[in-house]
């Protein structure tokens, strides 16, 4: 997508351009070109893969398309490529399908309108009951959601909420979730499309978590609680049905990610020794928020004997994390750390100072040093000798801490988090 996006930005300046893409991305490139309104931009396809060891075959692949590169820049555009005007949207029918429970479920799966699990049929009556969970009008437009920039209304959120198995009282959280996914800061389109298989997940803070019965204690991130489970599932259904996500078309996840089924939980504010997550980020304690994060996943946390409740242990486990991280910490561990006078800020500072990598490692990491410079690393990093050690984090905010769990074990899980690591925090209260 971003190759086509760059090409279009160049074309817009009156400069003819061509993109070189690999064959699994033909449909992705077409979808992007169509969505941006430049369906005629020229693409040259070479066989996949082209990364790492496969680069030895690249010269032959380029030699094979060399004439096509020249033609792409010199042969006049065809009538079809030069097409202008307006591509009218295909209007949606109000009723998607009619049938028995089995027929409805088969229809939704075959049309790519579900996550593969059975859905609750979103009938008019059920959607109406769901809409009673908010004071907002069904026709109110929240915005357009990536990757396909489809328009999202309050009613469309309610339809997907019914499908996910949500209850009406979850609606303010669900609407805030949809708002967060629409917010450009979330870069939903980028991380849905990525081959790296990012998962979206959320944390709920404030009074609403208890009002709707969310679990912040035992197994908070696991199954068993309706609000946690169905709000988590709704994230994926929103991406599918409100944003137009389709595996192999605009979701190019290569391995996939079990977390993409979605999960949501509440922070255990009652047992946390520290201020709640949303308070750290500028909200009042009595306000309710939902925060959306994007992660590849989490890493198991190993124990250093005798040093379990220590910053050294967290740093030891965090040392391979690239980008940002969210530490989801059981209250038992949080209390033990707080008992030593350690604050959330101390955790951030300790990790920032102790996690280091050499300039060589920066250069050899999966993205180039250049790319990280754009993420906040000072440009002068590039001028340093290869063996100079640097912080591997770009700043204190690359580390975030959330407290959840049942106090069975002083444990934590360390999720990577796309920068800005704090995620996208949205008020729930305005959607009540």
């Amino acid at each position, binding site marked *: *997508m*971003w*190759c086509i996006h*760059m*090409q279009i930005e*160049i074309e817009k*300046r*009156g*400069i*003819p*351009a*061509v*993109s*070189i*893409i690999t064959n*699994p991305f033909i449909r992705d*490139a077409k979808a992007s070109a169509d969505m941006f309104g*430049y369906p005629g*931009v*020229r693409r040259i396809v*070479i066989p996949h893969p*082209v990364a*790492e060891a496969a680069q030895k075959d*690249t*010269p032959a692949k*380029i030699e094979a398309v060399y004439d096509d*590169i*020249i033609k792409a*820049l*010199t042969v006049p*555009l065809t009538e079809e490529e*030069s097409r*202008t*005007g*307006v*591509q009218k*949207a*295909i*209007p949606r029918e*109000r*009723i*998607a*399908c*009619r049938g*028995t*429970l089995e027929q*409805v479920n088969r229809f939704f799966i075959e049309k790519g309108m579900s996550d593969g699990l059975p859905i609750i049929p*979103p*009938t008019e009556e059920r959607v109406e009951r769901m809409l009673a969970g908010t004071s907002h009008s069904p026709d109110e437009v929240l915005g*357009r959601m990536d990757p396909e920039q*489809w328009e999202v*209304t309050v009613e*469309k959120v309610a339809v*997907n909420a019914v499908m996910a198995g949500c209850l009406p009282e979850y609606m303010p959280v669900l609407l805030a979730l949809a708002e967060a996914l629409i917010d450009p800061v979330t870069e939903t389109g980028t991380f849905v499309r990525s081959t790296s298989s990012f998962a979206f997940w959320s944390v709920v803070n404030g009074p609403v978590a208890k009002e709707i019965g969310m679990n912040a204690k035992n197994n908070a991130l696991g199954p068993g609680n309706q609000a946690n489970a169905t709000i988590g599932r709704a994230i994926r259904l929103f991406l599918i*049905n*409100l944003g*137009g996500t389709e595996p192999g078309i605009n979701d190019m996840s290569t391995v996939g990610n079990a977390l993409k089924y979605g999960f949501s939980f509440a922070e255990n504010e009652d047992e946390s020794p520290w201020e709640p997550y949303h308070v750290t980020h500028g909200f009042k304690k009595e306000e309710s928020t939902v925060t959306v994060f994007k992660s590849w996943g989490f890493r198991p946390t190993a124990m250093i004997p005798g040093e379990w409740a220590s910053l050294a242990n967290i740093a030891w486990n965090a040392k391979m994390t690239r980008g940002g991280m969210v530490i989801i910490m059981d209250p038992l561990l949080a209390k033990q750390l707080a008992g030593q006078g350690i604050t959330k800020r101390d955790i951030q500072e300790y990790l920032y100072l102790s996690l280091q990598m050499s300039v060589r490692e920066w250069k050899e990491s*999966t993205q*180039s040093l*250049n790319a990280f410079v754009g993420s906040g690393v000072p440009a002068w990093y590039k001028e340093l000798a290869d063996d100079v050690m640097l912080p591997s984090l770009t700043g204190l905010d690359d580390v975030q801490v959330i407290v959840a769990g049942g106090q069975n074990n002083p444990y934590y899980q360390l999720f990577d988090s796309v920068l800005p690591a704090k995620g996208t925090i949205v008020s729930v209260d305005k959607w009540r």
Partner: protein
Amino acid sequence: MTVDEIIYSCLEPRGNMKDIKLSPPSPRLGDLKGKTIYFVDNGKNGAEVILKTAMKLLQKDFPDAKLVYHPKTTPYTRPEPQNWWRELEENADAAVVAVGD
């Protein structure tokens, strides 16, 4: 009627599509002779070899063309700085972008 025979009318869950204004790509060049061509590396693994191979081949056939390799200075999702766009607008006759993977 059994539970399995109940017929459900399901509302459409998908968001509304938008009208899309179509624009044509830029007119092509008649020839690459003497032209300045930018080769834009979007930072994806493999792009550099793709572009430098193409540059090597083109330089042989178009010795008077000026070929400029530009690795993006920002992550592939972020725009390049305005001064680079100005440079491109002032100098580039054409561009090759890689890689869409």
